[in-house]
């Protein structure tokens, strides 16, 4: 296989993703794990760029790193004052988790094995087309309008529910 700059950068991102994902599951300190997850999510965003999904890459960073990960850390910091917060793993969890992971691995391997040879879009001279307008049209014009609207209403309901639960009761 010809080694080009692109492949080098790709393997860089792949290594970054896998290495930090390994750190996420092996590190005992939960905050360290959360920050390793940040690197993983960045790596996945980089891989999205290689799949020519530019909008998805930025969304990945903005939603997962800027939103969900911050929420996780916020929760950890609010609930534990200690610096060394360690994860305790029990035998039952280990077996259950291992089983589920193995099943997932088998599923993914089956998918990879049954997929015909992957075509690299950029190899046959296909020019990169921005995805934003296509995503927008699909969501608002064609097949995905209903799921999109249902998801947004669901999120709104969740938002109102969260506000209602966390609100301080004021009665007078």
């Amino acid at each position, binding site marked *: 296989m010809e080694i*080009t*700059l*692109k492949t080098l*950068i790709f393997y860089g991102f792949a290594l970054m993703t896998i290495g930090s994902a390994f750190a996420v599951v092996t590190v005992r300190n939960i*905050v*360290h794990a959360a*920050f390793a997850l*940040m690197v993983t999510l960045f790596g996945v965003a*980089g891989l999205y*760029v*290689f799949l*020519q999904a*530019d*909008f998805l*890459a*930025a*969304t990945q*960073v*903005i939603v997962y*790193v*800027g*939103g969900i*990960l*911050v929420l996780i*850390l*916020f929760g950890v*910091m*609010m609930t534990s004052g200690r*610096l060394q917060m360690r994860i305790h793993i029990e035998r039952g969890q280990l077996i259950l988790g291992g089983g589920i992971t193995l099943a997932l691995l088998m599923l993914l391997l089956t998918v990879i094995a049954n997929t015909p040879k992957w075509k690299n879009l*950029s190899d046959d001279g296909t*020019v*990169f087309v*921005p995805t*934003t307008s296509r995503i927008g049209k699909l969501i608002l014009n064609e097949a995905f309008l209903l799921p999109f609207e249902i998801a947004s209403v669901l999120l709104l309901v969740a938002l109102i529910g969260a506000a209602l639960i966390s609100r301080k009761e004021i009665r007078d």
Partner: protein
Amino acid sequence: MSEILPSSFFIQIQDASGNWASDFVENVIIPKIPHFPVELGTVLVMIACAGIFVAVVPLLPLVLVLAERKVAARFQNRTGPMRVGPWGTLQTLADGVKLIFKEDFIPPQGDKLLFLLAPYVIFACSFAVFAAIPFSQEIIVSDFNIGIFYIMAISSVIVMGVIMAGWSSNSKWSLLGSLRSAAQIVSYEIPLGLSILTVIMLVGSLSMTDIVATQENGFFSWLIFRSPFTFLAFFIFFISSIAEVNRTPFDLPEAESEIVAGFHTEYSGMRFALFFIAEYANMFAVSAIGVTLFLGGYEGILPGYDFLGGLPGFVIKTLGLVFLMMWLRWTLPRLRVDQLMNLCWKYFIPISFFNILGTGIWGLIFKTDDIWSIGISCTIIYVGLISAYVIAGRVFSRKPEPQASSV
């Protein structure tokens, strides 16, 4: 080679003829060293350009810190730094040299790895934002098709660095500061994003150069005057971005009188300087984004003339916004936490949603930007401002003066 990939992750200084870096390699390096690999050469040229960029941008804080101190001095009727260099102009340089030689103290009870990493996360993110800012027609590091979205994504990572710094210091002040900062940045990202969305709705593109290109017909084609809703959105954007960069009146994360210095309490020496540089670089970056989105970017004031356009015009407009931030800092007192959250969730977010609805209707009524739409928009803005002034005057003058609190 790089047109194969989306241009993200490849730094390219662009000009009209396309990829500057590979052209440079083919025209300059190849004639001298015939068998030099083009790809490697391109990467080296790109890295060199990025290096120049990373070296130049920290000079901004050098100027801005001095400007801040001088502005503060003016506001408080004193002279500010006067000793180092003529009128104290070399004061920041002296401070920087001093900070380099200070001890780099690491709290022994803290989390060493994260403590060392945190300044770099913040520094890298605040500098990565500059990659998508168009300084002029030629000077843009990379013209992504998702420019503004990329900027929002990258700047949302800064909060991770803040949390990292606050948590790893193992200090109550730091932790409180970083928690406040996280809450504030995550909250104010919503009105910020929504007000950017009004601009994107009118322009129909996420690319920074496309956004500037629609404002090329002088002062009245600037997006801030394009509709009454973008006018409103600009102010929400500006105030939210002040909150995003943690400056007074939203400087709760580093409130000196309450929590020492917030998330960077435990930092010293050059690591503290990195936070400091990042803060001023952020300030410049959000002002530059504001100028690009609402105030015409690098386009001039008059249609057809280059007056106040290009790089000088862009920098002048941006520094104007930076000055406004400094002005606010030395004029307004700090908000309380509940006031901060009220302002965001009860006022800015509903107004932003109203803005989006209004912009959608505006876009339906005025399909193109002709003299009529801009004229009507400016009239509405004018009438709105006058009536807001009058109403505010009536409301606030009727209120009786609050009684002096019981002694």
